[in-house]
């Protein structure tokens, strides 16, 4: 009886294993057949986790018949995976929500040039890599929010104002492990030089209302709660709070005003979500079709609408909410510099004790 | 000589000193030998070496002219055809009495197996308890089943490790006489280990005592305390 139980469990184990293997082969078999046909498929690694992205992929499949296979992961780990997989990688495309990461992928030789007039026409030069190794799809601005009752917006017109004595122990910002902050500091390194950026970072640390913690939303909530008066955050998080299911989040967001910093001077820090064509791509043609699709007007409209981001295609209007915040001047900066300065930015943060 | 243990030394993995050192013992066929010793003297280890549960560092063991272990040979415990009654009996808790006894019977038909089970149960006077589970038996009953299980496959050598240590005093006296009868009836060569002189005297044909990991004849210690202790000679 016990004996039988043992044998049964062994058989069960083996059959499950073979099932797993078969399941795999048949899947792979199916897809490779398809790729031989007219339609084909593309494989995508993405660091963006928005439901709305999936809707766009589905739409693409509907229009072209090309299957989009996705692995969602953390940006850095996806780069590590691509790197390890090398030439043999199955991935055709890589999407990530930070220009710095795209640059790192390019530096590691993981990307290749996208040759497409459609893309070049739809997306301005400044949101594309010099060698077209990556293409920006959406923009987000890293802005300052302030409490409408407690802060005079005149006092807080630049990122540099955050370090002024007015905001001693009043600044809320995320930790140094956050990529958006790393990129912000990287941009300041590019503009003000390493010394200026170090001074700025250390001024931020001096003015911090509390140890950095939580996400962007938590910073905004902190301002509403009175833990600090000003916070640094990405535009779309505020958009999401204003449209939250939770009444209290909306109430908190409504107490906040927003500033696009450095309008009179160097411009507001802008980062992009972008896409790259992998060096190892085996479905290059389809992959480029996909990139082209994402830069079209309709796709760009969807991108912008769902996630409160600014479309990279200048012909597409941002949503009403974003428009209500007004137009703004962006940093005059080649976005590759975000990647080049990333390492330095982290080290500065460590040095000045930005936790 | 039926059993020959020659210059065997052994040391447990986590200790530095040899627990068995230059151990020699010969046993003739059908003899019941008792090894008497304090706890920790290594007497149980001798049984483990004989059964193949441990491998000696040095020396050789031969049973019925077949080398069990030396520098070039090692027979695995399951191939030795040795029977053993453990100190706490080690009856398989998930099997009935009859399943326990059948466990060691190999190469028989079902019918033969059943027959053998009945035979040995009769021998130990436990036929009624065939369908019971070990935990439904008293200590003395468990002990008899353990004995029945050990002798069922007709082993060439029977080893008993402190078979009485878990029994009440009066039960112990009753059972040890019974045990001697049973063993004598089967005629199996036996070695049993105990710390109790009375047990040893009651059952054994010959008593061996252990000191510093080696074997000495019981008389040599018993009769003279001052005279130098004569080491048991290999040749008898």
């Amino acid at each position: 009886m016990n004996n039988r139980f043992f044998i049964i469990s062994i058989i069960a184990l083996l059959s499950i294993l073979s099932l797993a293997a078969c399941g795999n082969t048949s899947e792979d078999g199916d897809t490779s057949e398809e790729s031989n046909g007219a339609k084909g498929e593309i494989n995508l690694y993405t660091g963006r986790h928005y439901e709305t992205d999936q809707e766009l992929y589905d739409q693409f499949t509907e229009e072209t018949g090309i299957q989009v296979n996705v692995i969602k992961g953390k940006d850095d780990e996806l780069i590590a995976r691509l790197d390890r997989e090398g030439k043999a990688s199955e991935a055709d495309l890589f999407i990530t929500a930070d220009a710095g990461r795209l640059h790192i992928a390019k530096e590691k030789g993981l990307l290749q040039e996208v040759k497409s007039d459609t893309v070049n026409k739809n997306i301005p030069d400044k949101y594309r890599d010099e060698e077209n190794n990556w293409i920006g799809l959406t923009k987000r601005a890293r802005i300052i929010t302030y409490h409408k009752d407690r802060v005079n917006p005149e006092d807080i017109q630049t990122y540099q104002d955050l370090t002024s004595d007015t905001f001693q122990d009043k600044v809320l910002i995320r930790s140094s492990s956050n990529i958006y902050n790393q990129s912000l500091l990287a941009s300041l390194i590019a503009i003000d030089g390493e010394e200026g950026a170090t001074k700025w970072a250390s001024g931020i640390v001096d003015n911090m209302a509390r140890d950095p913690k939580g996400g962007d939303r938590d910073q905004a909530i902190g301002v509403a709660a009175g833990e600090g008066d000003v916070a640094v955050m990405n535009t779309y998080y505020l958009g999401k709070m204003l449209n939250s299911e939770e009444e209290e989040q909306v109430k908190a967001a409504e107490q906040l005003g927003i500033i696009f910093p450095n309008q009179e001077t160097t411009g507001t820090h802008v980062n992009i979500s972008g896409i790259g064509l992998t060096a190892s791509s085996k479905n290059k043609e389809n992959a480029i079709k996909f990139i082209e699709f994402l830069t079209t007007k309709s796709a760009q409209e969807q991108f912008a609408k769902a996630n409160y981001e600014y479309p990279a295609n200048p012909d597409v209007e941002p949503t009403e909410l974003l428009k209500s915040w007004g137009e703004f001047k962006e940093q005059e900066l080649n976005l590759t510099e975000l990647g080049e300065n990333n390492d330095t930015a982290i080290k500065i943060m460590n040095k000045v004790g930005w936790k | 000589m039926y059993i020959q243990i020659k210059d065997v030394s052994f040391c447990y993995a986590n200790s530095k000193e040899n627990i068995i050192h230059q151990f020699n013992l010969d046993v003739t066929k059908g003899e019941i030998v008792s090894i008497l010793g304090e706890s920790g003297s290594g007497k149980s280890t001798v049984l483990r070496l004989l059964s193949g549960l441990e491998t000696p560092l040095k020396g050789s063991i031969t049973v019925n002219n077949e080398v069990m272990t030396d520098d070039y040979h090692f027979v695995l415990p399951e191939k030795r055809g040795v029977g053993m009654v453990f100190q706490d009996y080690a009856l398989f808790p998930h099997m009935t009495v009859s399943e326990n006894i059948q466990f060691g019977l190999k190469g028989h038909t079902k019918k033969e197996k059943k027959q053998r089970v009945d035979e040995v149960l009769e021998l130990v006077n436990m036929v009624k308890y065939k369908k019971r589970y070990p935990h439904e038996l008293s200590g003395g009953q468990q002990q008899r089943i353990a004995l029945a299980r050990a002798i069922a496959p007709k082993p060439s050598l029977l080893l008993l490790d402190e078979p009485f240590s878990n029994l009440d005093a009066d039960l112990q006296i009753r059972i040890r006489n019974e045990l001697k009868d049973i063993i004598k009836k089967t005629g199996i060569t036996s070695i049993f280990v105990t710390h109790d002189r009375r047990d040893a005297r009651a059952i054994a044909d010959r008593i061996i005592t252990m000191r510093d990991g080696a074997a000495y004849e019981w008389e040599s210690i018993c009769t003279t305390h001052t005279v130098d202790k004569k080491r048991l000679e290999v040749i008898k």
Partner: protein
Amino acid sequence: MKLYRKLPGYMNLWTFLSLFIVILILLPNVSILLNFFTQETSNWQHIQEYILPLLLKNTSIIILFTGILTILIGTSLAWLISAYDFPLKRFFKWGLILPLAIPPYIAAYTYNGILNYTGTIQTILRNKLDFTVNQDYFDIMTLPGAIFIFTVFLYPYVYMITRTFLANQSSSLIENARLLGGNAYTVFFRIVLPISRSAIVGGVSLVLLEVLNDYGVVKYFGIQTFSTAIFQTWFGMGDLNAAIKLSATLMFIVFSILIIEKLLRSRRRYSQTSAKVRPLSTIQLNGWQRWIAFSYCSIIFGLGFLIPFIQLIDWMLLTYRKIIEPAFVTLIGNSVFVAFVGSLIIVTFAVIIANFARMHQSFIAKTSSRITILGYSIPGAVIAVGIITVFIKIDNLLFGVYESVGMQPSLFLSTSLFMLISAYVVRFLAVGFNAIESGFDEIGSKYTEASRILGMGITKTFIKVDFPLIKGAILSGFLLSFIEILKELPLTLILRPFNFDTLSTKAFQYASNEQIQEASLASIIIIIISGIAIYIFHQVLEKGPR
């Protein structure tokens, strides 16, 4: 000479399989650790100067306090449940394991959601009572907050192991102490704590390994620990070597803990009497005492399960319309499938190694059993990259084979579920192994020896004797691995095949976009499935080893 003589005892399937498994486990780790022997980089100096002191400080504070608190809570609960009767005790017996069903990072998000300015508590105070509070008192995103999260959601490891120990081993000692007139406090502090030391240490070392490996909680709370620093150096600075050196420092800490644990554990053999297992008789608590016991259990259960669970349900009700979709059935299927297969392989491997290790008290056997813990002590992301490296090597080697069966040479294995499941096995082998090893410990070697002397070989002995006796332990190992895999995140995220989502990746997807409300549905399903597994696990424990 010695080895030569012992060789015949080694010549069997179990040895070969064990060594094979050990090599499988070692490969991905070695592929990473080889980087350790490279030159120091300038980054490493930077790390030493600016981060390392902080990491050591934070990590030691978290370890120290989480350790002490989980010991106090876990042991006192185990003692209450084992020794006394009070209202709802039968429920608490397994209910107190339930916090294990909630992934700590989800708990961290949830608690912040409850306590922060827009959270339930402050909202009620503000809107209903017009009472605004000092944010500092409600801030959970601090070092003490992290310690709270770890304590409340990981103490069940200590509780489970200690309670099993107390129930089975201690009755005579404790009853003696009672007869000698010791009051409840003396019995607890003078007898219970010292005698269950090895069980407690076993539990607390699992807790500490989980804590050291945590990335989600500390990152969200903005606390720099080894795991955040490893990520930052590796990915942010792109410096694998420095990251490995940090990992090695972490592993040094881990192995110190393990060695201490082993030293303490190895002495248990001497303290364990062979007397029959007899359950501890319980004392009925009266009057106010029973309500104190009841309240204590309720508070812990409330903090560790009920409160976050209710909050998640509340959020789910807010958001489910937006996010529910038929694909959730697939998610559940995927999660359960990988957890099931992974756990099955884990217990199979664990049984093989544990059986091999107990048969031979040799160096090789001992080392093999220690290597199982390797995957548990290295951060998930490091294992992930190690696994990828190995699988790509294998795929490259197999290109010829793929071609010969008419497939295109491609990364077949490394884009299959096979890679993910292998990673689970490397990571959680220790969980299954510990359960099964203690199962073997409990039955001892006498039955095995009896069987072998009765003429059964090792394998037959295993099938007929060992397996039926340790079935419970195997099932426990299976269920614990199952829960771990179900909750697992970093490996699943990076190693999954295309288009493969599980409940935990879904929960993470929302949580990483700061949409914790939307993450609630997937989290709740994880918690319910784990909860069921915990209930079955409890039933297995209750039935006991025999």
